């Protein structure tokens, strides 16, 4: 090989080698200790989207099934239907909440200092386990409520009892 060509080959290989090293250090799998903003952002976006989707599904169920009585702002109807805002039923015991949604409720009950004595119709034939879970997710993240998630499996377990 001529001397010049040989030099080009060495320098070229050196460049390619460096490029390979650079790529392997900065692509997936490499640089374990360093922050990789591109990849973390996409993971975070995926998680947010799932919450949003669940919230949207739950809201649709609320609007279709619950809104007529409990109202768009969750305030209920004076002396007839209790509010779902800051509600002990929504934020309280998981099993009790699942049962109220599945089986309905009647008879005298005091909620936030007001007495109610009406009928809440059962939804067990109307909503499947996932829909109840979505609805609870919406209720517990709206109307000034705050409580943990209830999975569809948990709903199924209570429904069977």
């Amino acid at each position, binding site marked *: 090989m001529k001397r010049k060509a040989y030099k080009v080959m060495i320098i070229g290989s050196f460049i390619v080698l460096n490029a390979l090293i650079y790529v392997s250090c900065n692509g997936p799998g490499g640089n374990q200790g360093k922050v990789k903003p591109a990849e973390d952002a996409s993971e975070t976006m995926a998680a947010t989207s799932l919450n949003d989707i669940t919230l949207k599904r739950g809201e649709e169920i609320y609007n279709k099934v619950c809104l*007529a009585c409990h109202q768009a*702002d969750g305030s209920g109807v004076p*002396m007839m239907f209790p509010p779902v805002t800051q509600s002990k039923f929504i934020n309280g015991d998981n099993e009790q909440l699942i049962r109220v949604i599945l089986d309905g409720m009647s008879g005298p009950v005091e909620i936030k200092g007001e007495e109610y004595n009406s009928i809440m119709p059962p939804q067990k034939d109307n909503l499947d386990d996932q829909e109840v879970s979505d609805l609870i997710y919406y209720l517990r993240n709206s109307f000034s409520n705050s409580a943990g998630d209830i999975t569809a499996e948990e709903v199924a377990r209570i429904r069977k009892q």
Partner: protein
Amino acid sequence: MIIFIILLTAMFITQCNPVSQSVNEGLIPDEDNGGLNLPDGFHALVVADNLGRGRHIDINENGDIYMALRRLNNGKGIVAIRDTTGDSRADEIEYFGNFAGTGMEINNNYLYFGGDTMILRYQLNPGELVPDEVPEIVVSGFPEQNQHRDKSFAIDNHGYIYVNVGAPSNACMEQARTVGSPGIYPCPQLERHAGIWRFPLNELNQKQVEDGYHYATGIRNSIALTWNNLTDNLYVVMHGRDQLYQFFPGIYTEELGAELPAEEFLLVRDGSDFGWPYCYYDHLKGKLVQAPEYGGDGEKTDMTEDKDDPIMGFPGHMAPNDLLFYTGDQFPDKYKNGAFICFHGSWNRAPLNQEGFFIAFVPFEGELPSGDWEKFAGGFAGAEPVKSPSDAEHRPMGVTMGSDGSLYVSDSQKGKIWRIFYSGE
């Protein structure tokens, strides 16, 4: 001597001048008319406020006002109000009675009261604001029920009391308030509910079944009912059924579900049957229509042939809660013998705005309306539109007439009472 005669004559003239019936001298309205919007020449003042969950009211000949409460206030279910200074505003307020309820009417020195399962009467004693503490039972034995249990009533001038027994359901569905559920046929609730029972007024300890006369049927719930003394018959404004759209979305749109069915104005005769649950009144079509629970599709009129039409239909769900025929002389002529109706305000028109929260007026000629209804008094709800009923500051609930022809109106949110009067300017 001449001066003395002149003075004496002047004194007599001023003493003997009758107070004009149509112009209220000396009655000072609130600057903002208590927040109400009224026709020209009408004014209002607030008699009392924050009395509790007000229901029907009545006023004694001496001006004492009594209001039923739907929830006990410190254990008491009736509030009594007296003005001692002559400015028409409450000076004495007393609570009594251990039962909450709706119906309230004074008759022959008794305060008749509609509790949820009984009609009671309290003995009024001349000059005393608070009646005897222990009531007597006029009628009991009404079924326990968890909706439409409020007992309203009307007293005629023949010694009878007419009691509303509301239906224990929305539409007699096989599965209560469930999407698409058919209705039970025949509807067993018509036997003890969904109608008017008549009882002799002056007998005690009567029972619904043994002593009641089943006067009319097919009426879902009549909180607003009254006896028209001029025409000598019973009138009701009925609460129509709910949620046509939610339960039958294939037949009704959201808009139709908000507008239908009509709140029906009924002339109730002995034996009337207004069709609930088998049909409802569609005021847009001007006729009774078969209910979807019984096979209706919004158009069919099966099962309506032998049912009685209303005399007028109002937009749906506005919740008529009291009815009064105006017999006073204070208001302008057009109001004479016409009907005032308290529309308490809807809860189930969402996602459309809620409607109602006003007093309507219907002119009458004899037994029937002589023209369209109009809004008489508004502004009860405060800020509009009302999206859910909790937004409404006040909701008109009960109406009665004072001996001078003023109207008194009660509110169910806070228990405010207004006096509405006409002063001609």
